[in-house]
């Protein structure tokens, strides 16, 4: 007995068939069941597709850089137009000042000649 326990176990543990009724139900159930479709992988599933993650990160970085450059250029354009306007105002003030100087000189000359005429008389 002790020496053939393994062979007795092998003999005793021969596979047994399920009942025919159950087998038919099993087949019907398995065949009626549609296999589940694998879920589509998300673009950003980092473990599954690392290249997709890098591609998305690169695109995002490019977009951020483009927006930054655009804002910088817009800032420069506004600064340039501000300087231009300042130059125009200074020029206008200079011209006005010249005109006022001329008018002042004319008025001054006229009043000097009137005084000379009075003293000559």
């Amino acid at each position: 007995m002790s020496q053939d326990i393994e062979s007795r176990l092998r003999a005793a543990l021969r596979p047994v068939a399920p009942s025919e009724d159950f087998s038919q139900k099993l087949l019907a159930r398995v065949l009626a069941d549609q296999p589940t479709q694998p879920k589509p992988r998300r673009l950003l599933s980092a473990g599954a597709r690392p290249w997709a993650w890098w591609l998305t990160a690169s695109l995002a970085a490019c977009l951020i850089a483009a927006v930054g450059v655009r804002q910088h250029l817009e800032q420069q354009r506004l600064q340039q137009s501000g300087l231009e306007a300042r130059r125009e105002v200074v020029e206008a003030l200079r011209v006005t000042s010249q005109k006022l100087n001329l008018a002042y000189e004319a008025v001054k000359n006229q009043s000097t000649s009137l005084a000379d005429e009075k003293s000559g008389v």
Partner: protein
Amino acid sequence: MNDGAADLLDDELAKARSGVRTALAVLVQAHRRAVYSLALRMLGSRDLAEDLTQDVFMQLNGNLRTIESNKHLGFWLRRVTTNRAIDQLRRRARVQMTSLEDDQPFFSAEDDSDPLLQRHLRDLLSELTPAARAVLLLRYQEDLDPTDIAQTLDMPINTVKSHLKRSLETMREKSLGMQATRCEDSST
């Protein structure tokens, strides 16, 4: 299983993967006996074994694309069946082996062993821990070597060997005890 049958089942597996339902039926027919026997002897109840067998094949239906060959399919089925059975047994606080259905062919009727000894072996098997029971079934029912058992149960090979050694020693001692009792009974 001979090479011709294995090749045939490899072909059927390829067809089943591509959606041929009749090929899936062939695979179920080929493996239902092994899956059901494992489930029955692990759980000790025909109803639970039928439920588990059905669940395992339904799970297979959704995992066919991951199965590479008929050999892999056998490994996968044994692994899923034993793991799920062990989980079920562990969920139960205490396995009530008195609820076993004695009218079911828990052991094969094809052998000429002593029916009393069969019943005794059945009782001894059901007294083992779920893991030890799975190891013994994979060894003596499925005829796997300890390396394959270790892979199937995701268990270190030394643990498999130790389960086998301890379980066989226990069964041997208790069988000798039973034999001695019967000798005494027959002599009186």
